């Protein structure tokens, strides 16, 4: 029996990581280490307003009193935070006037990653902010968005151009001392994206940020803030890759979303950071991310969709605070782990307003020696009458050396609440694959069909372009080893 299963898990084998190359660019990198001076230097480098420096220093003071969390079901050697550089940027002239001034190597890197940035080739209906190590290097379609009043720019730029907006919202969803990594991020973050959708505006295109870690010993600490005003809508996409190094890189991002009355944010991620060597588990990204949205206005909605296929360790719980009445939070997730990957991911739905609804659909696929945990919390406050939650957490095991765990936590302080939780575990069996083959369908197509069938409910939440990419990515992870 175990032999049989092995052959299935071979198929789920990662092909060599396609994005594992490094780009040779001249960068300016801070010496390793972390202290107040480094934080002041980052803030100065970015020519930030005073409130930002104060915010950072407060976060740093908080962080120093905190401990790395030990509750996630992941294992790794202690991180030496003094052995990381907190700032790295491709060297460039003072301020970029146009895309022509971006280092052509950097432009080529993004093109290789399928994200062409220059005017002729850029994606027609997706606006992209490209973040390379610690800085945003290019943002497309900015003007077009500005015509309808949408602000889409690197957060470093927003701090200069719209400091009041940033000051009003930054840290209101994820406070500086929220958790260990969020505090660290708040102290040292270097760039990320800022989006503001004015009232009564449906974004005319998808908005996206693409993160690329390039330098070996820098951490990436990006910060994203999206504000969607009354009666507005935006769909936001996030993608990421990193080169292949033997050492681990730390990626500790914070994403904050705020929706006003009747607004909706749909946030989708396809995460494909380098996962480390498949056999030895060496290298790979530590992806310790805090993502949280606040449905502040009544009748607003936040929906998280994630397809997690990379990183050596993932620690990530995109959450919703359902503060307004009649607000809705959704979480759709596919997490694939193989090799020696470890993922502890899930969501938190905090019901505060009346008639709030949340739904959670989580699909975990584990293969090889990997460990895949779902951790979800549904918390209902005492004023949240008629709150409802539906959770469904399915796991698929490939082989018998991997593991899947489900940790649901439900806390309700109101008796009019309805909470439903379903969980199921399945396996891709040799018998299923044989059935396909006996109908002339290749093993590779069979696996693709079974996996995409398993993930269907999540994929259909992704915007078209992304759904295709996610599907391709999962198949790619499975492909090369077939036949």
């Amino acid at each position, binding site marked *: 029996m175990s032999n*049989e299963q092995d*052959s299935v898990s071979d198929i789920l084998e990662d092909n060599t990581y396609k994005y594992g190359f490094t780009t040779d660019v001249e960068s300016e990198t801070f010496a390793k280490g972390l202290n107040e001076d480094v934080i002041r230097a980052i803030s100065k480098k970015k020519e930030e307003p005073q409130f930002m420096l104060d915010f950072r220093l407060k976060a740093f003071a908080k962080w120093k009193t905190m401990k790395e969390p030990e509750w996630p079901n992941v294992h790794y050697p202690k991180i030496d935070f003094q052995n990381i550089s907190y700032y790295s940027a491709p060297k460039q002239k003072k301020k970029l006037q146009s895309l022509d001034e971006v280092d052509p190597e950097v432009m080529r890197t993004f093109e290789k990653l399928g994200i062409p940035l220059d005017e002729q080739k850029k994606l027609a209906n997706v606006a992209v902010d490209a973040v390379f190590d610690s800085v945003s290097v290019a943002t497309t379609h900015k003007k077009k968005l500005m015509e309808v009043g949408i602000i889409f720019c690197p957060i470093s730029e927003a701090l200069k151009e719209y400091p009041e907006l940033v000051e009003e919202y930054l840290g209101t969803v994820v406070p500086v001392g929220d958790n260990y990594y969020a505090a660290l991020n708040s102290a040292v973050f270097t760039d990320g994206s800022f989006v503001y959708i004015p009232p009564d505006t449906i974004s005319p295109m998808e908005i996206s940020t693409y993160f690329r870690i390039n330098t070996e010993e820098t951490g990436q600490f990006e910060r994203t803030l999206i504000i969607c005003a009354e009666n507005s809508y935006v769909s936001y996409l996030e993608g990421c890759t990193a080169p292949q190094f033997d050492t681990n890189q730390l990626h500790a991002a914070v994403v904050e979303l705020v929706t006003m009355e009747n607004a909706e944010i749909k946030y989708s991620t396809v995460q494909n950071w380098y996962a480390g060597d498949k056999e030895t588990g060496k290298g790979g990204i530590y992806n310790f991310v805090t993502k949280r949205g606040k449905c502040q206005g009544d009748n607003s909605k936040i929906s998280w969709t994630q397809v997690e296929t990379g990183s050596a360790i993932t620690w990530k719980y995109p959450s919703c605070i359902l503060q307004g009445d009649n607000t809705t939070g959704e979480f759709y997730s596919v997490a694939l782990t193989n090799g020696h990957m470890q993922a502890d991911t899930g969501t938190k739905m905090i019901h505060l307003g009346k008639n709030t609804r949340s739904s959670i659909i989580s699909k975990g696929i584990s293969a090889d020696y990997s460990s895949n945990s779902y951790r979800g919390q549904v918390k209902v406050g005492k004023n949240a009458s008629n709150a409802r939650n539906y959770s469904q957490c399915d796991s698929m095991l490939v082989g018998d050396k991997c593991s899947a765990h489900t940790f649901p936590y439900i806390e309700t302080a109101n008796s009019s609440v309805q909470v439903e939780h379903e969980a199921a575990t*399945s396996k891709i*069996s*040799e*018998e*299923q694959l*044989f*059935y*396909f*083959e*006996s*109908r*002339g*369908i*290749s*093993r590779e*197509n069979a696996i693709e*069909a*079974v996996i*995409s*069938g*398993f993930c*269907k409910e999540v994929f259909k939440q992704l915007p078209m372009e992304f759904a295709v990419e996610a599907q391709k990515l999962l198949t790619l992870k499975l492909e090369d080893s077939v036949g």
Partner: protein
Amino acid sequence: MLEIKDLHAGFDGNEIVKGISLTINKGEIHAVMGPNGSGKSTLAKILSGHPSYEATSGEILFEGKNLLEMEAEKRSLAGIFMGFQYPVEVPGVNNAEFLRMAHNARRVSAGEEEIDPLDFDDLLSEKMKTLGMEKKYKERNLNDGFSGGEKKKNEILQMAILEPKLSILDETDSGLDIDALRVVAEGVNKLRTENNALILITHYQRLLDYIKPDFVHVLSNGKIVKSGDKALALELESQGYDWVTTAN
């Protein structure tokens, strides 16, 4: 078309098929009968290329090609179809899409273009109609939650879509109600041509009343202990297996 020569086979070193020889020509129908556990399904799985079963000696030729060297996928593309005794459930995979994948795999391997999805839908509707299958089969997931009889019908639907040269139907009749048996048998008969052949594994004469076999073989303990024409099946029906298995 198919030539099995002194085949020994089994799984994990257990020999289940203990020296079977059988020749099947175009246009013929062979019924294989025999007591539970005699090795009928094992023989069928060996023919379809199930990876858990292994031939230890002997030979199988299909249209002159060495079948044992071909992967299950290639055997199917070469025109062999297996209707399973216990079709596996595949949750999440839509039945109609699965059928289209299988149909397209055939076309692509024959150097043709994939079928237009709408044309395929028409083809599927037509085949389903001849098998008296309701529309819901299109929307449901592959065998997922199907009743025993529904699974069997779905196997025959696949056969109708794939139009194989050699079909091996392993107890397709068991689980079908009386009306369904008639409809399915008629469906199978409609698919018959001078150029294809059929192996029917069954326990019951009922099926053979509808699909008339040219030959009947009795399998016992991994061997063919008796072969004859359709009269043999009638004899078995009235006398049981004892008289053939002990007489041997």
